[in-house]
């Protein structure tokens, strides 16, 4: 993910800890990584800064979480909590739309496992 970012922008345009957070919040999904960088870059431009700071990435994290809040239904929160704890799914019919909207991410090592989008951790901790 770091290489993906540095192929598209100069290293001096983002603080190292901001990039670390952006990578963590992307969940390893390139499209999400690009979205976070774009929102963070917009934030830096609005504040007339020449470098993306951790604060900009935190803003991107909040914005993506807000987008999820607008589209998740109440039942989805229970499903997301289950997946957060077990890293597994119980019934594809419950999570198909969550996989589509990327609130649940699918990974594969020896076998498939699942986790919630990293920006949702904060929401489900409450």
């Amino acid at each position, binding site marked *: 993910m770091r290489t993906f970012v540095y192929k598209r922008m100069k290293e001096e345009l983002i603080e190292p800890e901001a990039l670390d957070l952006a990578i963590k919040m992307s969940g390893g999904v390139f499209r999400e990584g690009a979205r976070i960088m*774009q929102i963070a870059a917009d934030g830096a431009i609005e504040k007339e800064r020449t470098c993306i700071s951790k604060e900009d990435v935190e803003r991107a994290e909040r914005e993506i979480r807000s987008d999820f809040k*607008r*589209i998740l239904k109440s039942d989805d929160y229970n499903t997301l909590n289950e997946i957060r704890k077990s890293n597994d799914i119980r019934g594809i019919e419950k999570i198909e739309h969550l996989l589509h909207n990327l609130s649940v991410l699918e990974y594969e090592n020896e076998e498939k496992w699942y986790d919630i989008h990293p920006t949702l951790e904060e929401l489900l901790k409450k």
Partner: protein
Amino acid sequence: MDEAKAAFEGRVSRLANYLSRAYKYNKPSILFAMYLSEFLRSDVENSLESALADQGLEVVSVDTANFKDLPAFFAAKNSDNTVFFVYNLDKGFPDVLQYLNFKREVLVEHHVKAVFWVREVELARISLDAPDFFAFRNRVVVFM
């Protein structure tokens, strides 16, 4: 200036800036403007259109009650300084969502700049029925 007015103007200005940057760098911009009431939408729309005109951008309105295949409409009518305002998405459901989802790449290929005016329930439906298109969004800006 009271707090609500400052927040309103800040959000309109943010929308205008996203679109003018897309124009400047020749990039697509897919934006959702979520609103609570038609009165509010009308205020946002007028302020945004005026801000865009100042920057040489021209608004083309499209009502999905009349045009379901929005990607084809965008491709036919687009020019560098065009910004599409898309209304009444719910009137075009479900066809309009299928077109947007299957032909989403058209918006990127033609560097389309579009503002989809939606209510919360429409946004949720888009994320559910056109998830790949929704994933192409640049920003959701909320006017409440």
